[in-house]
């Protein structure tokens, strides 16, 4: 299905278009497109051109360092790596289950993380596109424009994110790269003062989260056909769900459904993920391509993240978010919602759920408990899987007799979406590239498609809507025939 799009049969006859750099895509990335004579895109590739190497350089480190060490992968959702590694090291120290206090403190931390990450993505990065339109003047289509035109909305975005960061600080000690989760539990519970501090504002956060969902719905339905079609691809989806099928972010079984919503696998113990998920390697990208083993490499790619989670779950345990989920699912008319732009909508339903879940947890007395840690018989390996803001995140470690990591395998959320992002880019490029002369619309639409996934190639999204980008159009002899540059200040220049 996809191989023809990954590698064109006769690339020498095609025009090669390079978008580089996709800056701050948690490193560096670029997009290359090959355009045939009929102007169809025949090859689309999202390349991650930077090599991180975490799997290698944590080899030789003691296992108890992992939760703190591995979270340095990311400054945007470090809590996800922190908790996934902590879950893996729980297995290593033989903690079959956590104390109620430890599990709830970790959950609270994770809800805070998801809240702040989703708030950042929607309000700071995507709202300019959604509010002003993709063809709005570049100088205005950014977060400063949002502040100027909708100061109240911008303020809500900033304060929602701040609240999430405060939840992280209270549970992990620091807003970024804290130390709360340790093998077998946590290093602190909450004080009554800390709980009261967080309770003060939570009702306001729920209200603002509801408002954000309403705003997103309004935007989505105003151009329903467009948003349903833009960058839309039909894919399988994978996420964790709770034992009763409920939406789950911290701990559950793996569920995958195909593009028609039929079950591929369900309630899979994530420790056996290797039996269900494999990764393929392409020689043109440092990012691997995971696929569902039973479907094979060609058909087995899938999507993760908010869209997958909302589509896959049977219900959400908090009432406001569940009501929104039902409205969301109605758009699919009985089938999974495949619109890539619906990622934004699903993400905000999750944001609402996080505020509700935080409010519930803050009433739970287990948060102030003193029983913080369990341990048991040491094991040689551990697997931790969590639903990070951007999707399912896998950590797997093997240690030696001395407690030193010998093998590590990480499948990060964005990697799961690798093929899907490639497909979405192809669709957008095919739709908007209008021949020999490049347009700013294409430049932005490619960004918009990538941004919908909120990839932690994140600079693509986390450069506050001003990612510097270079778009080159070459003829079949490799000669540059057109070139657009977008500066960090948003200014676009034709430089040829």
């Amino acid at each position, binding site marked *: 299905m996809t191989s023809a799009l990954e590698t064109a049969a006769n690339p020498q006859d095609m025009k090669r278009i390079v978008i580089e750099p996709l800056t701050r895509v948690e490193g560096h990335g670029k997009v290359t497109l090959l355009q045939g004579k009929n102007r169809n895109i025949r090859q689309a590739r999202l390349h991650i051109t930077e090599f991180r190497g975490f799997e290698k350089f944590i080899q030789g480190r003691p296992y108890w360092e992992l939760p703190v060490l591995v979270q340095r992968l990311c400054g945007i959702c470090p809590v996800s790596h922190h908790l996934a590694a902590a879950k893996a090291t729980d297995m290593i120290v033989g903690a079959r289950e956590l104390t109620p206090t430890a599990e709830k403190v970790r959950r609270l931390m994770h809800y805070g993380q998801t809240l702040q990450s989703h708030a950042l993505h929607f309000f700071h990065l995507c709202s300019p596109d959604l509010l002003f339109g993709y063809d709005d003047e570049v100088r205005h289509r950014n977060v400063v424009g949002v502040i100027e035109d909708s100061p109240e909305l911008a303020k809500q975005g900033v304060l929602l994110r701040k609240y999430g960061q405060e939840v992280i600080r209270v549970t992990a000690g620091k807003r970024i790269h804290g*130390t*709360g989760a340790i*093998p077998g539990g946590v*290093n602190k519970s909450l004080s009554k003062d800390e709980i009261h501090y967080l309770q003060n504002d939570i009702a306001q956060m729920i209200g603002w989260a509801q408002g954000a969902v309403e705003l997103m719905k309004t935007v989505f339905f105003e151009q329903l056909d467009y948003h349903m079609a833009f960058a839309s691809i039909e894919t399988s989806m994978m996420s964790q769900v709770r034992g009763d099928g409920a939406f789950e972010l911290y701990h559950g079984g793996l569920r995958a459904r195909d593009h028609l919503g039929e079950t591929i696998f369900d309630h899979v113990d994530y420790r056996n993920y290797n039996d269900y998920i494999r990764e393929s390697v392409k020689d043109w990208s440092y990012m691997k391509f995971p696929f569902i083993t039973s479907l094979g490499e060609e058909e087995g790619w899938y999507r993760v993240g908010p869209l997958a989670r909302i589509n896959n779950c049977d219900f959400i345990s908090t009432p406001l978010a569940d009501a929104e989920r039902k409205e969301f699912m109605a758009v699919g008319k009985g089938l999974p919602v495949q619109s890539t732009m619906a990622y934004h909508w699903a993400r905000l339903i999750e944001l609402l759920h996080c505020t509700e879940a935080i409010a519930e947890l803050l009433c739970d007395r287990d948060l102030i408990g003193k029983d913080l840690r369990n341990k048991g018989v040491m094991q040689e390996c551990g697997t931790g899987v969590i639903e990070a803001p951007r999707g399912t995140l896998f950590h797997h470690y093997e240690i030696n007799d*001395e*407690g*030193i990591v010998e093998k590590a395998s990480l499948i990060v959320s964005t990697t799961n979406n690798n093929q899907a992002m490639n497909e979405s880019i192809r669709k957008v490029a095919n739709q908007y590239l209008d021949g020999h002369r490049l347009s700013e619309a294409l430049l932005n639409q490619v960004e918009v498609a990538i941004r919908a996934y909120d990839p932690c190639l994140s600079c693509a999204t986390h450069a506050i809507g001003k990612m510097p980008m270079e778009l080159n159009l070459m003829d079949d002899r490799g000669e540059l025939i057109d070139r657009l540059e977008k500066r960090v200040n948003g200014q676009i220049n034709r430089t040829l």
Partner: protein
Amino acid sequence: MSTEKTFRLDGKAIPFEDGETVMDAALKAGEYIPHLCHNPDFEPHGSCRICVVDVNGRHQCSCTLPASEGMDVDNSSEAITNKRRTLLQMLFVEGNHVCPACEKSGACQLQAVAYQTGMLNPHFTHFFPKRSIDASHPDIVFYFNRCILCGLCVRVSRDVDKKAVFSLSGRGHRTRIIFNSPSGKAVDTELAITDKAVSVCPTGAILPKHHGYETPVGERLYDCLPISVVGDAAKHHTAKKHFLNGDPDE
């Protein structure tokens, strides 16, 4: 008429008794002189030079310098602080001190002294030496990346624990700490978690195994107050509890 002997430290009269060093007298009087290789419980060594002071125009190592009447000691001028900062910068680039990932961060004497002297960057080019971890011992792990060769563990193991587990080997910048065992591994020494030598490291080079990051951020030794107020890590109960009671879970 008082017969108390004194010297002046930053203009303040510090009493001392015969045989006391400038460092001993200053600490007894509640005055902090930055130091790493010095531990008041053991014989001074003078190897790290962080406690350098200006005495009557000469740079001296205060932990080994006997106090005498009439001394005028400069402990806190910008010039002395600059000297100490340079020494610290050299210590940092000589090893691999990655504070963000180190479990001793927040309770590390080296880090705390660096903060105290206002060290904001390493200044010099990093050596990035290739050093290993020895995790062969069942209770203790050794991070040679973090060793500053202060020699405290060597001295304490030899003089207090009477085991002579450690030695300094090599010369110059190739000097390194080794285990006195046939295999060169910690597991083949007599070292025990209850040994005094295990608790005196001013950095994160010697730590209990299977434990890390158990003290929350905000409650670590130097999270709230500087080392000039808190004092040495090794003297502090919370920093020693993992080692000295022999039961890291307590």
